[in-house]
């Protein structure tokens, strides 16, 4: 069983605060962490490898600046066997298509895989597009919004969220699975001893010299979409703060609801 798992370094959104005065994000001093959905994917990769007959290999892959290596070390400490960091200035500014292309190129170069796992979405961008795009580029089926997965011979059986509830889907491997986190999932940091051990596991950094992708299709240059403006949303009007006894407040709220046409 060979499993590739894609991970992304993101700002810890639980630490990102909004300045109550200006309404803008305070990002200074916010630590970078592994995207929580991806951490769950790594944990699942390790579990599936250990459950598979004859064991196997889990390869964690990330694209990002040199400091993104820390999410690979984190993945190795969670039990992955090998890490590959795709880091090259030529990769910078990639939209989802180009990100998927770069990751898919790396997966192809790393050989045949039975499973490709990723988080459903990254908490900074929330696009949920890279997983399905990788699957299409690798020519394998996909199951997204996966909450739970089991192996049955050469098949996976996954419980996935759909708009009307859930579906249980089966597919022959190779297949790409994009994971939601279960509601009781709390990303934990591996103990220090495991991190020390992880640093001895193989972890390579590839530039495009190693990857060999078409340079015209990389980074900002290769991206189909262009971000033309990033801005804080129009400043919301300050909330009208109500005061008084609970009875007073209830009356005021009912008045407002009436005025706004909700009653």
């Amino acid at each position, binding site marked *: 069983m060979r499993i590739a798992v894609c991970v992304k370094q993101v700002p810890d959104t639980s630490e990102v605060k909004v300045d109550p005065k200006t309404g803008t*994000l305070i990002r200074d001093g916010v630590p970078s962490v592994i995207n929580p959905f991806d951490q769950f994917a790594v944990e699942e990769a390790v579990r599936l490898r250990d459950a598979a007959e004859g064991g196997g290999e889990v390869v964690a892959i990330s694209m990002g600046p040199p400091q993104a290596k820390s999410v690979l070390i984190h993945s190795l400490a969670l039990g992955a066997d090998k890490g590959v960091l795709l880091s090259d200035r030529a990769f910078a500014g990639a939209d989802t298509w180009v990100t998927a292309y770069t990751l898919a190129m790396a997966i192809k170069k790393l050989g045949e895989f039975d499973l490709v796992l990723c988080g459903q979405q990254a908490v900074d961008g929330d696009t949920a597009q890279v997983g399905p795009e990788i699957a299409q580029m690798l020519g394998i089926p996909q199951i997204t919004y996966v909450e739970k997965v089991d192996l049955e011979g050469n098949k996976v059986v996954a419980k996935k969220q*759909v708009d009307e509830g859930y579906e249980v889907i089966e597919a022959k491997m190779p297949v790409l699975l994009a994971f939601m986190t279960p509601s009781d999932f709390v990303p934990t940091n591996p103990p220090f001893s495991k991190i020390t051990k992880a640093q001895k596991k193989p972890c390579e950094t590839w530039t495009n010299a190693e990857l060999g992708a078409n340079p015209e299709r990389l980074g900002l240059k290769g991206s189909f*979409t262009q971000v033309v403006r990033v801005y804080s949303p129009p400043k919301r009007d300050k909330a009208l703060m109500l005061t008084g006894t609970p009875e007073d407040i209830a009356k005021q*709220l009912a008045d*407002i609801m009436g005025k706004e046409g909700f009653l």
Partner: protein
Amino acid sequence: MAEPIQVNNEKCTGCGLCGKSCPFAVITVVDKKAKIGDGCTLCSACVQVCPAEAITIERKAVKIELGAYKDVWVIAEVAEGCTKGVSFELLGKATELATETKQHVCAVLIGHNVKGYVDVLAENGAEKVYIADNPNLEKYTTDAYSNVISGMMSRFKPNIVLFPATKQGRDLAPRIAATLDLGLTADCTALAIKDGMLLQTRPAFGGNIMADILCPYSRPQMATVRPNVMPKPEPRKGHKAEVIEVPVKIDPKSIRTHIRETIKTCTMGGKKIEESEVVVSGGRGACEENGFELLQQLADQFGAVVGASRVAIDMGKKPKSVQVGQSGITISPKLYIVCAVSGAIQHTVGMSSSKFTIAINSDPNATIFAYSQVGVVGDMFQIVPKLVDELKKRKGK
């Protein structure tokens, strides 16, 4: 110019899987080699199934003439015998975009026995409806739907294609973007035309950052659009649309995922939280005592659905199907009443496009007030029962 789709005869084994997978039935096997006939839409279903990797499509060989791409398409979603409301919202926006670019609004209807939906799509703005009707399209599958829609887009060359940012739409659209080598913007909350191009606006970081995105050099321009954000158009009774039936052939073997079981999760009264005009949510502080019962009483005054923050879901107070936030559901109700929720990004991602928010929280510095029109610093256990009494009293009058 070489054809963009090529069969490598040295690799081709003549197995015929490509022919079986072709939704448009244009591949035949002649002298044990695959032959691509006229009418190939470059949907790439064959590329996906070929075990010998003998078929390639060179997208860049097709020179893009931006002007050749016309019309605004809406991928309609139907479920359980009705058209989803988001399809109408998208048609309303598409009408605006089409008027500005002097093009037509078209709906795409995929499924089985779906012709009955044509009129309602026409009344909501569709001038043309493209239909792919096949028993193997009755249930959504990524493979069949993406092949069929990719093929239609290659063949009819729309300028803009809008997908609902539902779980289905977000599974489908990126697959098509990767098939056709196209840009795609996720979860847009605003769309406009700028210099003849589609200006796509999307939030990130829980609505704390907005980005405007263009797709200058490739067509069609693709976006998924967040449900409940765009207003529904006023239906034009009796309007008719031109119907274009696109014949498709789906071999069940070309669908690589199989649905073993469907589990419907019912929310209170069968109403889904994302479609409810009023939502009442509770967070950590509502988990004590009878907090969620009080919220239900408040919700009953509006026929509303009770939602919950992630903490409250984790504590088992409500099912996952009503979790508002990043790992749950995105809602944009007309009125959102949110009690004892602090306003972490995890939650605000899911509610920042609500139209009118009333927050009750005992912490005067709670972030949730920054997302609210009206705030009350106080204890929901004291205020909510009084509010329920007051609302009942006014209704009685």
